[in-house]
């Protein structure tokens, strides 16, 4: 900043991050990167904006295109076990072979849409149960004394410090016929024969709700915590009973959190594989398992890819719907 006088706003902002940028630019690869960008008249700040796009390209767009490509190929016994889409024939002809059969297959066999439907059902019910359990918890946390909130928040996040797999395994020990619950109930003389819980849909719901509950609580907590308490006082002051105030004020204003929490549970639960595999029984048909079967048991990478693409489309459609809901909730708030 040796130049005296007026400094454009952009430059002033850039100076804040200057030391870091300068160090980064010194690295040869990054220098090349920034020089190239510079040639295309993209400033350092522009490059910062590019980072999320580069991230998306690298970890979403490219894998997506690869999966899409495989879904249009044919299954063969080879390494890799699918055909190439583009091939030179007779040295001069470029041949592109697209196999739509895999998608046709998904439509023809009832198994797939039943699995999708069942996954949507399980994910929806799980997300709903998460909401029912998570909302009061988030509410209590947001209303707790300030000194307690961080402790409670820590407790919510604490399970993440243990392996997800271990925690699901722990549920096997709890729900087994010879597990904790049944042992207690039998010891207490409440039941004579163990209640079958493991390897049922019930166990799958427990597993999903347990595993994803924090993803419901955190966004709910953050919206509820921001909620201005004087709004509830104002409602009470205007003659509104506490429960009614909850319905007319708290609930509508926490809708963004509800929508965010719901999709944070619903979307990963939709493709869940581990939980139904470990806790579920023979009835717990979910699309994640169908995909596993196609990929591993049938070695049908193309069909598996088609299943994945279809699922992604489903999720994107649901997310578009969710976005609409969120916008609605936001304009309402």
């Amino acid at each position, binding site marked *: 900043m040796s130049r005296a006088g007026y400094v454009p706003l952009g430059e002033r902002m850039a100076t804040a991050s200057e030391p870091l940028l300068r160090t980064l630019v010194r690295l040869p690869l990054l220098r090349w990167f920034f020089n190239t960008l510079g040639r295309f008249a993209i400033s350092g700040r522009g490059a910062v904006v590019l980072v999320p796009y580069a991230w998306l390209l690298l970890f979403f767009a490219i894998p997506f295109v690869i999966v899409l490509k495989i879904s249009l190929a044919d299954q063969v016994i*080879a*390494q890799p076990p699918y055909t190439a889409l583009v091939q030179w024939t007779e040295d001069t002809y470029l041949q592109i072979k697209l196999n739509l059969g895999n998608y046709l297959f998904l439509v023809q066999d009832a198994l797939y849409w039943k699995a999708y439907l069942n996954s949507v059902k399980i994910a929806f019910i799980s997300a709903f149960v998460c909401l029912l359990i998570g909302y009061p918890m988030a509410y209590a946390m947001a209303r707790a004394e300030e000194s307690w909130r961080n402790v409670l928040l820590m407790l919510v996040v604490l399970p993440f410090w243990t392996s997800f797999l271990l925690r699901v395994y722990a549920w096997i020990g709890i729900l087994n016929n010879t597990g904790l619950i049944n042992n207690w109930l039998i010891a207490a003389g409440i039941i004579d024969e163990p209640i079958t819980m493991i390897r049922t849909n019930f166990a799958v719901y427990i597993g999903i709700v347990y595993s994803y509950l924090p993803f419901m609580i955190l966004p709910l907590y953050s919206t509820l915590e921001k909620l201005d308490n004087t709004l509830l006082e104002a409602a009470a002051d205007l003659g509104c009973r506490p429960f009614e105030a909850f319905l007319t004020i708290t609930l509508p204003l926490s809708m963004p959190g509800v929508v965010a929490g719901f999709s944070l549970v619903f979307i990963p639960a939709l493709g869940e594989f581990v939980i139904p595999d470990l806790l579920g029984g023979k009835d717990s048909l979910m699309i994640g398992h169908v995909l596993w079967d196609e*990929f591993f048991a049938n070695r049908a990478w193309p069909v598996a890819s088609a299943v994945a693409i279809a699922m992604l489309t489903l999720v994107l459609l649901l997310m578009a719907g969710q976005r609409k809901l969120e916008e609605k909730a936001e304009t309402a708030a």
Partner: protein
Amino acid sequence: MKRTTTALLLGLNLALAPLAQAEEEKVLNVYNWSDYIAEDTIANFEKETGIKVRYDVFDSNEVLEAKLLAGNTGYDLVVPSSSFAERQIKAGVFQPLDMTKLPNYKNLDPELMKLLAARDAGNKFLIPWMWGTTGIGYNVDAVKKRFPDAPVGSWDMVLKPENLAKFKDCGVSFLDAPGEVMTTIYNYIGRDTQTQKKEDLEAGVAVMDKLRPSIKYFHSSQYINDLANGEICVSLGWSGDVFIAKSRADEAKHGVNIEYVVPKEGALIWVDTLALTKDAKHPNNAHLFLDYILRPKVIAAVSDFVHYANGNLAATEFVSDDVKNNPNIYPPPEVKKKLFPNPTNTPAYDRLLTRAWTKIKTGQ
């Protein structure tokens, strides 16, 4: 004696190093099933050769195959089951072995090698590791309590719906391995075990449909723990896994008594085999390891530890009596005659099978 051998081998190794091994680093990457090797097998090899072994484990053929087909596994030696290895050979993921580097190859059981030749024409790619059967694991007391005259020792006990129903309350598990279960059923209902026909599959599915209501779950590893804990009482499972369950139950000492039986009607025999990946970076080290494994005493120690039979004829005399005289591990000749392998499935049949299996499992 042992020390001299080691010294000799080391000397040989050093002598050969500049020639054959060129610039191969002293590393070997092995990918084997979990709980499938003696505690000191690797350590002894490392001590003897100075080669550092990276030893990773998996627990399903499918996972191994997916890695192999994707390529660049980074492993030199892998251990697929022979029925899977056959397709993998066709896919070109392995390289043929150099038998001149395997002087101990002669120790292998010719009968087993003949069986393997059906998968691996000319025995070019595969070296047997262990073999076993797919039979019945059961909780002795729970079965006796529910069905005192249970036809233990016959497939009738689990493949007759009215019999299996008697164990529903104490828990029944089947392997989640469509090929093995269906082949077992074909054998039981008198169909060709190597069939690729749709009508045979349908007949097998009809049997499974009647069994399904009594089956608690289909899984290929969970049943080990569940049998040992008394969580389930009857399993259609792999011999070695049931023995693991048995030893875990014995260790826990909570009164669960597990047995494994190869039913008298015969059972599926499977062989897990060592194979050298095509992109292996340490083929010479791999051959050294293979020859080490082919030594009778080395493989006998593994059999003692994992309770599976090996395919090394010369090793049998070194296997402990407990193991080699157990008819369910080393079946007597009359039972051995009735063992049958998994068929080699066409992709079309494979798909029919998986689809049928999903239907069986989910009731959809």
